[in-house]
């Protein structure tokens, strides 16, 4: 596979209490690409995503074993500034998480938390992020409006903008379009395609057609006989779709299971 690896996992396992939900994940994520993580629900896809920016640290009962390297640095080693790490590896969630403030303040939020206080700089970054998220034209005249007044699709792009405003290097998305209608979904996908190259994108998705539309690489997670999630296939999207090596992948991508 091509490209420079930006994230690399070695023997990654995720536990929830005593239950192992993800085992033996050894993957490399390639810089500037879009990697889609697909597979049936409850196989630890979100847990995999959350172990890449150490958000699992905050989930009660969750435990991560193994190594995760980001640009060569073991992010689980001691002395890692996890707060800084999360500004480099941003995340967008399944449900749009909108803060009870204005559209402008929602995007500025991450900047303010990270100590940016020059209002001029913030204004510039807010506009830049809203443009990147293809929301600027829809909200430029009402930046001070309550963000709750936006439609669900707009709210999700607002969340995208909020994450983009702190200029992450890697963008993790956990089923970002599952609450959106097809039109809004397409908008988000277009945004992701336009960001490709500028940053590395890892997206968990339920939708095979979405993976087909945007993914460069496809990572298939399936439960084994003990219901522990495992990566059964990983490669260039085209190859995985057309020539899967694993029988279960073949059945999954052809819609027979999952």
């Amino acid at each position, binding site marked *: 596979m091509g490209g420079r690896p930006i994230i690399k996992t070695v023997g990654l396992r995720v536990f929830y209490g005593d239950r192992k939900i993800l085992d033996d994940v050894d993957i490399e994520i390639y810089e500037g690409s879009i990697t889609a993580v697909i597979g049936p629900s409850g196989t630890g896809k979100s847990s995999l995503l959350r172990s890449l*920016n150490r*958000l699992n640290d*905050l989930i*009660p009962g969750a435990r991560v074993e193994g190594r995760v390297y980001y640009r060569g640095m073991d992010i689980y080693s001691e002395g890692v500034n996890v*707060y*800084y790490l*999360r*500004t480099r590896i*941003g*995340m967008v*969630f399944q*449900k*749009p*998480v*909108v*803060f*009870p*403030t204005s559209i402008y303040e929602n995007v500025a*939020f*991450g900047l*303010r*938390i*990270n100590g940016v206080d020059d209002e001029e700089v913030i204004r510039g970054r807010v506009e830049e992020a809203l443009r990147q998220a293809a929301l600027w034209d829809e909200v430029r005249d009402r930046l001070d409006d309550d963000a*709750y007044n936006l439609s*669900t699709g707009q*709210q999700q792009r607002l*969340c995208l903008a*909020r*994450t983009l405003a*702190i200029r992450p290097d890697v963008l993790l998305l956990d089923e970002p379009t599952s*609450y959106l209608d097809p039109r809004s979904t397409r908008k988000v996908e277009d945004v992701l395609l336009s960001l490709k190259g500028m940053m590395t994108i890892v997206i968990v998705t339920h939708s095979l057609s979405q993976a087909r539309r945007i993914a460069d690489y496809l990572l298939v997670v399936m439960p084994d006989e003990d219901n522990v999630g495992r990566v059964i296939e990983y490669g260039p999207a085209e190859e995985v779709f057309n020539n899967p090596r694993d029988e279960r992948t073949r059945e999954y991508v052809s819609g027979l299971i999952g």
Partner: protein
Amino acid sequence: MDRDSLMKILTASALITPLLVLFTLLSMILWDGLPGLSLDFILGLPSGRPEETGILPALVGSVYVTGLAIIISFLLGLGISIYLTEFVEDERVRSIFYFVVDMLAGVPSVVYGIVGLAVIGIGLGLGRSVLTGAVTLAFLILPLVTVATVEAIRSIPDSLRLATYSLGASRLEVVTHVILPMALPRALTGTVLAIARAIGEAAPILVISGVLFTRSIPISLLDEFTVLPLVIFNWVMRPQEVYMRLASSAIIVLLLLYIGISSIAIYMRYSSGRRIREV
């Protein structure tokens, strides 16, 4: 009569009964107390002659002690609940703390008075002062405030916390940027209930202050004091009818004071906080 209308009548009378009781009480108090209510009564000093007496020292004492108690217990309750919800990770430890808080709510108020006098008044040497009374009352209403604040914080969806952490926030930043502004309105609602409790308490203050009659207005935190419920208690214990009327007038003042302080809290509630909505 069909079952539905029977049910309706039964539930409606459950509502009407307490309303009737409240209405009767209020009208009796207003009937007895309104004629004696004057600025001279509210702003006057107590006197041995009932027709010349006033309640200023007790009114100041009530505002002073209750106000301080609310501030102390609000800050304390906020600290406790942020610690319990955001920093204690073990669910068992947390439930033990919740149990302790619930137990504290069940302790009779006079016990708080005795412990307050012994520990703060005598032990710490603060005497029968405003400060001793305020701290004691603060602990008395602490469970109410804490439970309300904990509920307020727990109603903040985890998704908001995770989203904030995912932007690189530290725990402190999550607390100051998300937890505090969003929990404040509901926490203040709980505090309004606590005000009602604190302002009407006579038993613990009787133990701590013991002063039923004083002409001196408390100014320093270490001054002796009395409160309106004690003055009312003193007057209703007397056989003469004139004191019954004086007590009613003082009760009206107490009610107005309660409405006044609660309005401040309710105003703060609507102007301070942000409401959360989820998709």
